[in-house]
């Protein structure tokens, strides 16, 4: 796989303002020997204090035999455990911790992940980790392509004003990184639909590159570091400066 050159910053911000993160998802895919009907109960008894509300998702109504053989449905959640400020999503082959309200910062998410993994280990339904992924989705109310060190050119000239959707996958320090940048996004915030750009970055490791209960947390830490390096590295310096960066 070819490399994807990304400018390396001497110092990464700890925070920018306004915070563009609309969703942060830490996902674990796994295999299990436990029937699906037992898994939600195994987990809910351990997390119900913090996540008292359970929501069955629409996909849970689809017959199991059909859902299991549809590739695009295999890793979808069927149930949500709703807490504040996080939601836990669970499916027959996946578990995720989602921050979709105001982003609380990495430390609270990581601490919550640590807590969740302890309970998942106790619940005992994961036979083997298949993939871990850290995905951050950022939204900017502008054409982001004009603000990045990544340029799209045609006939030697920069492409501007056109609707664009770019998807690329590359390896960054051993992690598989999937980046989607689109300037034709609509995001609903505070009851209004806002037009702008998304920067959707998923950093993942496949089976064989992690051991969920041995070094999974370390791997998530590293994935977060890489996510920051890629995100901030692709912002043009003057654009980053306009986002009121704070440094440790």
């Amino acid at each position: 796989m070819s490399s994807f050159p990304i400018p390396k910053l001497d110092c990464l911000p700890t925070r920018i303002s306004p915070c563009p993160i609309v969703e942060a998802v830490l996902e674990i895919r796994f295999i299990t020997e436990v029937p699906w009907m037992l898994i939600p109960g195994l987990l809910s008894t351990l997390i119900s204090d913090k996540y008292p509300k359970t929501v069955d998702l629409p996909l849970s109504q689809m017959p199991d035999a059909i859902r299991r053989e549809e590739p695009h449905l295999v890793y979808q959640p069927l149930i949500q455990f709703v807490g504040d400020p996080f939601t836990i999503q669970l499916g027959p082959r996946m578990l995720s911790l989602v921050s979709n309200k105001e982003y609380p910062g990495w430390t609270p998410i990581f601490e919550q992940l640590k807590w969740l993994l302890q309970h998942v280990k106790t619940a005992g339904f994961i036979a083997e980790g298949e993939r871990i992924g850290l995905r951050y989705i950022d939204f900017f109310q502008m054409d982001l392509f004009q603000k990045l060190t990544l340029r799209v050119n045609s006939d030697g000239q920069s492409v501007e004003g056109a609707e664009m959707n770019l998807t690329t996958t590359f390896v960054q320090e051993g992690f598989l990184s999937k980046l989607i940048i689109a300037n034709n996004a609509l995001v609903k915030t505070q009851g209004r639909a806002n037009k702008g750009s998304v920067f959707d970055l998923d950093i993942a490791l496949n089976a064989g590159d992690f051991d969920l209960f041995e070094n999974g947390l370390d791997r998530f830490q590293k994935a977060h570091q890489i996510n920051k390096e890629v995100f901030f590295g692709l912002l043009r310096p003057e654009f980053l400066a306009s986002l009121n960066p704070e440094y440790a």
Partner: protein
Amino acid sequence: MRYPESGMVDDEALALEKLGVKGWGRLEHFKLCYAGGWGRGPQKPLSPRSYNALIRSLSVIQPPATAHPSVFLTDAGFLELAWKDENGKAVQIEFGSRESEVYDEGRGIEMAVPNENLPDLLKTLF
């Protein structure tokens, strides 16, 4: 036209090259349909680590041109690659989640190898 999952196109291309369409198809079938429990007994789901070990090994294995390696799924959820060497003797590799077992009837080899060491060993053997 097929668009593999992001980051998987090299793996699928390798499986197609080394196993042929039939072998690649069996792998995809195992991944999709046998990742949960299967069979009537205590068969285990396909181990992602086993799949990973197989793919990494495919990048170094060069079976004879006439070998047509076959791929199987064991009750333990591990992938197994099997073919006959130039003398018609059996070669089998069972890819476990942490270690793999290599059997070469022609050379009298039967050994278990940690997965991290497997590609280097297979490079010298095949």
